[in-house]
Structure formats: structure tokens, C-alpha cells
């Protein structure tokens, strides 16, 4: 009498096999899935194992391979018992099992089973060549579709480059794709039924255990913000719970993002290097502009006539206002532009220092929103403000005690309105901006046009300069260029 294990997910089939085999005096164990079959075969060493091919968790083919690898089962005979025979009568099962019995109506099945068990003792070589009972099976053409669909999914999963695992409720591996096999450098048979957590370091294993324990219908992903580092690899892991009919399992997808992380690190290093270079360039531009300003200053000392001295001083101030922008650029972390308030504070202080010839210093009120400007806007705007304030200090506030300059910027929907007001003597009578020939105001008009803006100068208890421009117009023009 034999010890027989039957593995099939159909309870009616299990009961039938149990009844028929027990009746013949055999000791029978029935199991409805491959994972438990492997577990039970540790203690129950069967003489014959009947295995169905289509089963949940580990399918029949894989189960046959795993059973064949077990040393304790070296003398056990494996018999496939499946309806697939109808679709593939030429199916070569000799590497998987010692015999193949087609599923058929119960009425005719018993003699086949008894006959097969007898033959297994005699000549397994002959049995492994053809499927037994093919003539009795019910036409099952639909199974072919299921098989095709299964093979199709298998091909799809094998072509995925991410490691794909399916775990049962006890965290045991019940499916692994080719990438998963490569990932751990183990064979498929070694990975199947192994506890998934045992494949990782204890630290990561604890973390994974918590996730697997708490996972609900929502996907959990780790390694997105903070990559998981394991065995010199950066990993991203996704977990999904599968619920289908009464079937429950967990899908784990492991993505090796090491090369992606290395590229990312390379890009960051490159960026840092380029930022350093750019800062160095701004530093040198600022130094060169200051050299030009110093040369102009030096040249001034050689001049005798005041108008020529004034022209050179004006030019020197213009160069210095540009140098100031580059100074601010390399002193801040952000190289894409400067903050206008900080720049204006420095510019106004510098100009007041240059033109400070009076006992009471000119008071300044600067009221501007926190505007961050790129070079395309900052340079012309800086030069415009330089000209207006220089004019106020040199002409408007000349001889005025308690002089005051107020700078306002209103920024609404990217429309900037700059006003610079002084409480000085105002514009000369019959002043006409369009007919004025001073270099300073000519520069302001041209720079305002460069900013796609409009400039005006008028009396208003002193002098008010007004500049309106749209930030987005200038930025759009810059990106177009």
C-alpha cells in the first residue's frame, strides 16, 4: 500500500481521489495548493504525488520542478492530473513527472487511477511517453484560451525589467519573474516558497514586515524620496494587495534605481561645478568693471575742465551700478537673478556717498515689494535708477536742506510701476523730455524702450520720474532670443 499526496484546487476532485485511493487501502493526504504541498512533504514522504496543473499560488509545473528537487522525495513518483491534456496531447511532461493522467468524468476515472498506480511500480519509462486517458476526456476547448492567456501573461511578466514577486499570506514567494531571479542571483526553485523577508538585511526586513502586515487596498511605495540602500544598490519598492475571488496575495515590485541615482548625482555635481564657474565669471566681470571705473576715476584727476570731469564721473557711476549687480549675483546662492530691494539699498547708498557734499545727508525712503529680477531686467533698470537718482542728487536737490528721495515700486499682475520722487526744486521751466539732449535722459529713454516700458518725468512738489513696464514682456522676449 502506498502513501499518496494529491494536490488540486478543486475540492470535489480532492474528495473523489481521497475516496478512491483510500478504498484501495492507500494512505492519502489532500492539499489544495502548492505552497502547503511543499510544507507537508517535509514530514509526509509520499510514494506517489498527484499534481493538478492549473492552481493558484504556485502552478503545477513549478510545483513538479520543486518536488523533483527535494532529496527526501527522490523515490516519490509524480503524476500530473489535469484537463490540459485535451488541448495539448503532445505536451512533453517527461521532465516534470513520471506520468500524466487526463482528468475525465469520475464514472470512468477509477480504473485508470488503479491501473496507473500498478504500472508506476513496473515501468515508469513507458508511462512518461504518453498521456493516459486522452480518449475519455470531455471536449474542453475553452481551457486552451485560459492557457494562452496564462502564457501570454507569463511572457509579459518575463519581459519586465523590474523584479516582480507575488507573496502568499505568510510572505512566502509564490511567483517570481525572470528579473526577480536575476535580482537575487538565485534560481527560481530556490526563491519559490522562501520567506520574502529573509532575502533582505534585518533592518530592511523589519521595515518590510511592518508594510506587509499593514498593507490594505492602497499601494505603498518606499524609496521615492529616500531611496532604500541594500547590497550596494538603490532600490524603490512598491507593494499592492491582490484580492480576486477568494484569492489573496501581495505583489511586490522592486526597481533597481542605482544607475538612475548615479546619473542624478553626476548631474548635481555638474550643476554645482557650473554654478561655481558662473559665480567666478560674475566675480571677474565685477572686478573688470571696477577696473574700468577706477581707470575713469584716474583719468578724471588728469582733467582740468569741470564739464569733462563730470562726464567721466557720470560714466564711472554707470559702470559701478552695473558692477554692483554682478557683485550681488556672485554673493547670493541664486545665480538666476538679484533681489531688487537689496540692490537698490546698496546702489542708493553708494550714490549718496558720492554726491554727499552737504551737512545734512539726503534722506531715502525705499518702498518696494520683494522682486527677484534676472539680468535682462536688472541691468537696464539699475542704470535707469542710477541716472534718475544721480540727477536728483546733482540737480534737483542742489542747495536743498532736508532733501529726500522716495523710491516706490508697485507690482500688480506683472505690471511694474517705478516712481522716484525728490523734494527738490523741480524741473526747469519749459522742460520737454522729448527735446532734452542730455546723455543721461537719452539713456533712460532708450533703456525704458528696452524694457518695453514707458518713461515720464514731471513736477510734483519736486520732481517725479515714472517708469511703467511689464515684467513678463521682458522675460518672454528674453526666452525668445
Amino acid at each position, binding site marked *: 500500500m502506498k502513501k499518496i499526496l494529491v494536490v488540486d484546487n478543486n475540492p470535489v476532485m480532492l474528495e473523489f481521489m481521497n475516496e*478512491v485511493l483510500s478504498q484501495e487501502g492507500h494512505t492519502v493526504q489532500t492539499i489544495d495548493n502548492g505552497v502547503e504541498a511543499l510544507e507537508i512533504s517535509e514530514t509526509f514522504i509520499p510514494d506517489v504525488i498527484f499534481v493538478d496543473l492549473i492552481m493558484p499560488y504556485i502552478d503545477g509545473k513549478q510545483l513538479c520542478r520543486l518536488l523533483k528537487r527535494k532529496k527526501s522525495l527522490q523515490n516519490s513518483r509524480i503524476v500530473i492530473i489535469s484537463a490540459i491534456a485535451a488541448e495539448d496531447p503532445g505536451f512533453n511532461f517527461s521532465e516534470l513527472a513520471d506520468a500524466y493522467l487526463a482528468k475525465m468524468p469520475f464514472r470512468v476515472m477509477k480504473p485508470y487511477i488503479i491501473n496507473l498506480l500498478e504500472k508506476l511500480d513496473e515501468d515508469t519509462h513507458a508511462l512518461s511517453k504518453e498521456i493516459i486517458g486522452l480518449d475519455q476526456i470531455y471536449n474542453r476547448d475553452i481551457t486552451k484560451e485560459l492557457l494562452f492567456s496564462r502564457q501570454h501573461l507569463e511572457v509579459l511578466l518575463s519581459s519586465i525589467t523590474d523584479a516582480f514577486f507575488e507573496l502568499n499570506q505568510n510572505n512566502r514567494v509564490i511567483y517570481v519573474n525572470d528579473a526577480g531571479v536575476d535580482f537575487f542571483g538565485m534560481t527560481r526553485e530556490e526563491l519559490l516558497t522562501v520567506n520574502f523577508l529573509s532575502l533582505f538585511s534585518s533592518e530592511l526586513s523589519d521595515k518590510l514586515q511592518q508594510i506587509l502586515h499593514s498593507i490594505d487596498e492602497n499601494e505603498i511605495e518606499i524609496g521615492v524620496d529616500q531611496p532604500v540602500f541594500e547590497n550596494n544598490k538603490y532600490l524603490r519598492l512598491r507593494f499592492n494587495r491582490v484580492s480576486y475571488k477568494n484569492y489573496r496575495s501581495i505583489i511586490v515590485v522592486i526597481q533597481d534605481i542605482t544607475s538612475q541615482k548615479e546619473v542624478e548625482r553626476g548631474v548635481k555635481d555638474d550643476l554645482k561645478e557650473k554654478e561655481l564657474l558662473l559665480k567666478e565669471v560674475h566675480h571677474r566681470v565685477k572686478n573688470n568693471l571696477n577696473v574700468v571705473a577706477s581707470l575713469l576715476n584716474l583719468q578724471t584727476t588728469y582733467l582740468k575742465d569741470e564739464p569733462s570731469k563730470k562726464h567721466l564721473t557720470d560714466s564711472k557711476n554707470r559702470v559701478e551700478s552695473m558692477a554692483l549687480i554682478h557683485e550681488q549675483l556672485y554673493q547670493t546662492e541664486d545665480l538666476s537673478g538679484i533681489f531688487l530691494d537689496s540692490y537698490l539699498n546698496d546702489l542708493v547708498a553708494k550714490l549718496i556717498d558720492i554726491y554727499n557734499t552737504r551737512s545734512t545727508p539726503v534722506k531715502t525712503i525705499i518702498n518696494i515689494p520683494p522682486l527677484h529680477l534676472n539680468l535682462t531686467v536688472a541691468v537696464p533698470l539699475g542704470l535707469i535708477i542710477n541716472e534718475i537718482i544721480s540727477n536728483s542728487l546733482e540737480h534737483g536737490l542742489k542747495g536743498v536742506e532736508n532733501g529726500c528721495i522716495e523710491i516706490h515700486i508697485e507690482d500688480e499682475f506683472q505690471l511694474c510701476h517705478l516712481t522716484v520722487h525728490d523734494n527738490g526744486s523741480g524741473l526747469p521751466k519749459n522742460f520737454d523730455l522729448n527735446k532734452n539732449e542730455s546723455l543721461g535722459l537719452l539713456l533712460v529713454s532708450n533703456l525704458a524702450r528696452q524694457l518695453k516700458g514707458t518713461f515720464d518725468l514731471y513736477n510734483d512738489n519736486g520732481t517725479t520720474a515714472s517708469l511703467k513696464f511689464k515684467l513678463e514682456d521682458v522675460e518672454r522676449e528674453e526666452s525668445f532670443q
Partner: protein
Amino acid sequence: MDIQSKADEIGISVDAYKRLCSLFINNTDKDLDLLSTAITSNDIQIISDTAHHIKGAASNMEFETMADLAKELQLLAQGQKKSDNSLLDHYNKLLREYQSKKTEIEAHL
């Protein structure tokens, strides 16, 4: 339905045959409930798998009309066969056949 001769044909006891029948009813009840829900939610994969399962079990028991109806439902769900009737019509047909078979079986259990 002659339980005794069915058991004899298979080569098992009447009690064992009754146990097979009970298991068959128990499983098919669950499968038909699942089918009904799947048809309402139009879940083709579950319709197809469950109909396949019913067909296999009915074939083993040689309830061939039921097996044929389950097969037809599976073919329809997979789009391999056209019909003027809906999946629900086919399901109802299968259900009626099963209920009649179930009544017949239960009379002998």
C-alpha cells in the same frame, strides 16, 4: 437520478458519492453567487474564470447540460461567440439548470 447506480459506476460508496454531491453543490452555489456579482459589474475575467470552473466540475460529475451552458457563458464572456441574448440571460439559463439538478441531487442526500 439513481444514487446507488451512480456510486457503483464510479466505484465508490453511496455515502462517498453523496459527499461529492454536497461538495459540488456547496462550491457551485458559491461560484454562481460570484458569477451573478461579476455579471452585474461586468467583470469579464471573473465571469470567464468562474464559468470555466463550473464547467470543469459539472463535467467530472457528468452533468453535461450544465457543463454545456457554463461553456457557452464562458465563450460569450470571452467574445468568442455571439448571441442575441445577454450574459444575464445565459446566466439565468445556467442557474435554472443547476437549480433543477440541485433539487434532484438534494432529494437523495
